[in-house]
């Protein structure tokens, strides 16, 4: 796994099908569905655990390495 400091949470609303799995299992409850698509309510509280990515059937939420984002 990547060093948690160097990753940030990303979403791809185009691929999100609004199943709600990530919302249900987010340990810090910062995910919600907005118009049936994934929405991060408070990115500052994200603990970068990756559980959302692991269980998203649609690859629509993930932790991205910072270097890659630049």
């Amino acid at each position: 796994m990547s060093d948690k400091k160097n990753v940030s949470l990303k979403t791809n609303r185009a691929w999100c099908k609004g199943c709600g799995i990530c919302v249900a299992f987010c340990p810090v409850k910062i995910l919600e569905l907005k118009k049936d698509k994934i929405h991060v309510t408070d990115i500052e509280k994200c603990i970068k655990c990756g559980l959302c990515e692991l269980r998203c059937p649609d690859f629509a939420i993930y932790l991205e390495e910072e270097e890659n984002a630049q």
Partner: protein
Amino acid sequence: MAVASKLIENNFRMNRLPHIWCPGCGHGIIMRGIAEAIENLGYDKQKVCIISGIGCSSRAPGYMDFNTLHTTHGRALAFATGVKLANPELKVIVISGDGDATAIGGNHLIHAARRNIDITTIIFNNNIYGMTGGQYSPTTPHGELGTTAPYGNVDNVFDICRLAEGAGATYVARGTVYHAKQLEKNIENALENKGFSVVEGISICPTYYGRKNRKGNAAEMMINLKDTTLDKKVAAKLPPEKTEGKLIIGEFVNKIQPEFCEEYHKVVDKFTKED
């Protein structure tokens, strides 16, 4: 700008995504797990061949950036046997469903296991025929509903893992899409086994199985997987009354036995090495 993780970009045909599976279908979780297992093991993608039959699960190879073959219903293992024997250098993976692998393809499953041919089979078990609209399958529990079991299923279920073990598979494990990380580890171990491996991945089908049997939404079905399963190691320490009715997950078989292609090549070598 990136639209997906590196794992997805490295292992999937990005122009084929998003996939066709329904909202909340667990299949994407297993498909991602397969990709991660391949990446963790560092396999050369040119030498990985992913083969499937027909059904929801069998659409997976079309999304995955390897040598991919979407065959006929139930026959993936028979095609895979041909590919593997013809070129044993290939890492051959079969993706199948509960109906595809154990009903129409049941004969191929047990014989591939008997041969111990080096193929890793991942069975996406969602307890229903999803592609055709929710008919009962060999893993639909007794009494549950399907469109062809409108008064409750009178059939009994296959225990896929015990079936595979009995037929001779040298690696057998069961995991669920809730326990995604463990499932991924099972897939890794299966890929590393030189022989026939079966990983039963318990998936969820909120659209047909879930709706028909009032199992709730996708998240509720995931929680249900947590509540109704027990890890093999944990179960071993519990009294029988505490494990009753629970589905046991974990590794059931992991052993070394002579592999089919290697055995066949010993025969070929007898003639070709004499020259």
